[in-house]
């Protein structure tokens, strides 16, 4: 018998090799108690959270929590059904209404996760004979959506406008075209030149889908994302987003002005064949989304946090993923996995939690310590974080 698990042997060996050095397992961390959007108890000690994607700090918002509790009381713990059968409650509609208002768009469709939103929309829309042109650094959910569908998949070099245009122009005449971009690329925290790319996509007759998972609530005058910030949201056919970042719960969505959009509710399998989100989740999401519409002050503070942390780490000699702060993600580039894991552990011992990102999830096989800031991080916390990085970096010999 061939062991079907033998294909995982290289990654098992890599993991064992790393743990044999005596390091704490970076993927085995348990948060024993969560105190606030920015602090938790990990390994019995209070730890500053700098790797949660909780950009707007909505997870402990009193109105959000109250809405969830009320929905639990009034609608129960779960829907036990698909959206197209018994799984559409008043709360799901209210949540979609909040999204339509947030984005100023005609249609909104809520999925059970952001991953499923990409999986469902991409695989359903782009079928046999159609072409998907996408950035090579796209998120796993986008790649999996491509794999689930039957379209021809054509990647181009990250953020390379000319490479995208050349490929669009080579697509056979008459074929359907979908260009997939992200507002913020989550590994390095860099943004896309959406304005230029979307203009070219439109000139070449393509529909455009933009994943704004890491920008919602934060980037753009109304927090609608990078496309809004660059003044091209009106040219985006489909915006994909998530509730598990700025919104502070779980779920995914697509908003669009496409006149036939609603048919997706009947033909999109990852939407049809999944139980819908629990009433408490959609209630917290709707309340949070409506609150994010008025989040200008929090947005300003989050930008300030991002600028201060970026400048502080750069001044101390760390190599960062972007020259200037472009989002709420600051990626600190590590020389290799061993020292990246050592640095991650040193930071945890200091009382700071960040994400350790390693190949193959990272571009160019980099090892990254990914920091995601929160609007609830205080100025003092950001200074504390910089001090922790400095001590840990010196201890591990990275700076």
């Amino acid at each position, binding site marked *: 018998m061939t062991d079907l698990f033998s294909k995982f042997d290289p990654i098992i060996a890599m993991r064992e090799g790393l743990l044999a050095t005596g390091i704490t397992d970076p993927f085995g961390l348990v948060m024993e108690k969560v105190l606030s959007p920015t602090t938790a108890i990990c390994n019995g000690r209070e730890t500053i959270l700098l790797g949660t994607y909780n950009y707007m700090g909505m997870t402990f918002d009193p109105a959000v929590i109250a809405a969830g509790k009320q929905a639990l009381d009034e609608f129960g713990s779960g829907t036990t059904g698909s959206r197209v059968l018994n799984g559409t409650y008043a709360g799901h509609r209210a949540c979609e209404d909040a999204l339509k208002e947030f984005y100023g768009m005609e249609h909104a469709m809520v999925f059970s996760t952001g991953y499923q939103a990409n999986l469902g929309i991409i695989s359903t829309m782009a079928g046999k004979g159609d072409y998907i042109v996408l950035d090579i650094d796209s998120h796993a959910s986008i790649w999996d959506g491509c794999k689930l569908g039957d379209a021809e*998949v054509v990647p181009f070099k990250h953020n390379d406008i000319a490479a995208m245009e050349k490929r669009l122009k080579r697509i056979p005449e008459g074929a359907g075209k979908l260009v997939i971009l992200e507002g913020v690329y989550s590994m390095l925290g860099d943004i896309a030149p959406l304005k230029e790319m979307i203009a070219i996509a439109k000139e070449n007759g393509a529909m455009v889908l933009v994943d704004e998972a890491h920008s919602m609530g934060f980037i753009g005058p109304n927090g609608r994302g990078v496309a809004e910030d660059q003044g091209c949201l009106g040219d985006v056919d489909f915006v994909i987003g998530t509730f598990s970042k700025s919104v502070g719960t779980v779920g995914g969505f697509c908003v669009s002005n496409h006149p036939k959009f609603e048919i997706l509710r009947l033909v999109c399998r990852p939407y049809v064949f999944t139980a819908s989100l629990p009433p408490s989740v959609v209630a917290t999401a709707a309340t949070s989304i409506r609150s994010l519409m008025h989040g200008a002050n929090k947005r300003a503070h989050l930008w300030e946090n991002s600028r201060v942390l970026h400048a502080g780490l750069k001044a101390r000699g760390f190599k960062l993923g972007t020259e200037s702060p472009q989002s709420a993600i600051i990626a600190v580039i590590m020389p290799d996995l061993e020292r990246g894991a050592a640095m991650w552990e040193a930071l945890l011992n200091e009382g700071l939690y960040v994400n350790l990102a390693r190949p193959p999830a990272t571009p160019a096989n980099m090892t990254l310590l990914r920091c995601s800031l929160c609007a609830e991080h205080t100025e003092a916390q950001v200074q504390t974080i910089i001090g922790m990085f400095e001590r840990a970096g010196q201890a591990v010999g990275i700076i």
Partner: protein
Amino acid sequence: MDRAATEAKIAALLAPFNTKGIAVGDATSFAGDLEFDSLTVMDFVAAIEDEFEIIISMNQQAEIETYGQLVDAVVKLQG
């Protein structure tokens, strides 16, 4: 462009990626013999696409394991 001319151009494009100087023939495999990782594949495919002004979609790439198969695919894609 005939197979020989196409092959000559591909050989020239492959050279900078063949860092170990492996002798390349039709049966040479990209993953096994040339040890291409996904990043190398992307850069190499992009170079070929731009040279011949074609698209080699991921779906087509999945069918191409050897150098000979690549040359055949590029000949075909040029029409």
